[in-house]
């Protein structure tokens, strides 16, 4: 088992290197010249050729590609992502740090919605397979997979905030502000999870041990809750865990719709303003989160899978 963990961790390192490389290449391909930008940052009144070449030497921009990459990587590991191109007074780290808590709050709440909605609904769909409830849920799920996330957000905003005036439309501050955006994000993922949980439970119900438990005369409810559900929970938790980075990435659109002041909104603004350091840091952050979360939950899945224990012995 330890071998697997070590192997997985080792694989993660090149992946992290790849994404950092991609981000570095990204910043090097942009049209604006970093030397010019640096000069602007220092508020140099007149930008001359000499000043540019001087800056290039100073910033080490003439060094070979790999050395610059290594230096940049070192900066990143120290959390120094440079300054914003647009507003040089602000550091990238500062900007992201300012907006990150809001996004995490939103993603966290969405996760809660996903768990409390998809688990019971998936469970009941499996137990009452092909009943009216199951068929209605399956149709609704089918529809939501065809709906763009932003439209769901708009629709909910219109119905609940404007028509019924139950919740505020935008901004943040209280739990009330959190409900609609979080629900919107969760809706896009709930459909996937309901289907996953339903199929997982249905598969587990066909297992041999369920037949044996029925043959021993155990109550239906005991079998379902103590045995089938417990066996399914493992898959469900791992799947939901692996989706956490997706939830964080998925906040981009919803933050835009509900004017939620998170990193997604920051990134979109940065794209329009061509504020490349921020975009780069955002991509780096999300990519790293992806790799790290997949690693952690891969390992958790491996450790907790009961069937793998059998192979080990």
């Amino acid at each position: 088992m330890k071998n697997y963990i070590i192997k997985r961790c080792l694989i993660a390192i090149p992946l992290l290197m790849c994404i950092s490389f991609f981000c570095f290449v990204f910043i090097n391909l942009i049209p604006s010249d970093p030397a010019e930008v640096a000069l602007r940052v220092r508020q140099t009144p007149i930008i001359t050729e000499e000043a540019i070449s001087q800056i290039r030497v100073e910033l080490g921009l003439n060094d070979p590609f790999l050395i610059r990459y290594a230096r940049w990587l070192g900066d990143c590991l120290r959390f120094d992502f440079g300054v914003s191109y647009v507003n040089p007074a602000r550091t990238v780290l500062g900007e992201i740090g300012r907006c990150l808590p809001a996004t995490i709050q939103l993603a966290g709440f969405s996760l809660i919605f996903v768990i409390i909605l998809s688990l019971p609904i998936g469970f009941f769909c499996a137990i009452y397979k092909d009943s009216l409830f199951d068929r209605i849920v399956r149709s609704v799920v089918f529809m939501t997979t065809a709906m763009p996330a932003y439209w769901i957000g708009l629709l909910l905003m219109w119905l609940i905030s404007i028509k019924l005036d139950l919740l505020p439309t935008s901004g943040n501050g209280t739990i009330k502000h959190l409900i609609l955006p979080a629900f919107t994000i969760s809706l896009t993922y709930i459909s996937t999870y309901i289907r996953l949980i339903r199929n997982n439970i249905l598969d587990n119900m066909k297992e041999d041990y369920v037949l044996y438990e029925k043959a021993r005369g155990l109550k239906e409810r005991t079998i379902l809750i103590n045995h089938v559900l417990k066996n399914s929970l493992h898959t469900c938790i791992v799947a939901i865990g692996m989706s956490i980075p997706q939830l964080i990435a998925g906040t981009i659109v919803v933050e835009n719709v509900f004017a939620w002041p998170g990193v997604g909104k920051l990134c979109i603004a940065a794209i329009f303003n061509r504020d490349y350091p921020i975009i780069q840091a955002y991509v780096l952050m999300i990519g790293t989160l992806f790799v790290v979360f997949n690693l952690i939950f891969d390992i958790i899945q491996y450790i907790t899978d009961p069937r793998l224990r059998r192979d080990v012995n």
Partner: protein
Amino acid sequence: MKELLKVENLTITNIENKKQTTIVENISFSVELGKCIGILGESGSGKSMTCKAIMGLLDKNFNITGSAIYKEKDLLTEGKENMRKLRGKKICMILQNPMTSFDPLYRIDKQITETLIEHTDLSKVEISKKSLEILEMMQIRNPQDVLKKYPHQLSGGMLQRIMIGMALILEPDLIIADEPTTAIDAITQYEIVNEFLKIKEKNQVGIIFISHDLSVVSKIADEVIVLDKGKIVDKGSVDYIFNEAKNPYTKNLIDKKMAVMKKFQEIIKKG
């Protein structure tokens, strides 16, 4: 001898997906107390389905007609709750694949306790005593340790014996054994078959023994029915089936097996 279970004209059809397929047709047999009836047949002949139908383990995708009278009750028409109470207590089943028949997430003692709690009013102490009894009855060494283990830590043979023990502990009237030796190696098979012979001798139970293995059936069963594609093609005592069977399918089955055995013995003699 007292007739324990009488099955008459049992017919099972699969009605899933708006298509009707007949699984078994007009099966009739009876089981007597203290005797064993063997159900012989190849894969897909409907052996397991018949027994699952008797125990009420088939879902609504199947249509069952006929009767299975046990103690003046027709098992095929009994309510779900009544059937559930019978299962595990009065009518017990031993399944084919012991390695996958236990929930991998629970220890053995927990799984035995579950069954006992369901069917008896015994206290915790009495239940632990009974659990040890089950393992001792099956001659499993270090029963205390075995109880604390997870299913994946035990061998197939041991799990099979635990299954047999669990089937016996509540003193049932009828035991249905669905290919209990198929997933086991030959040496353990021999031990399991002996267990069944002991059960037949000591306990007053009726046994339905399903198998596709002729040698095992010949040792245990008193009477044999042969199934082919859901229909009974032959019925009779073990001697009759093995030596005097007239039905071409049965004869083919016996001949094939005999040929393998003869060849095996020839090779042993030569070497």
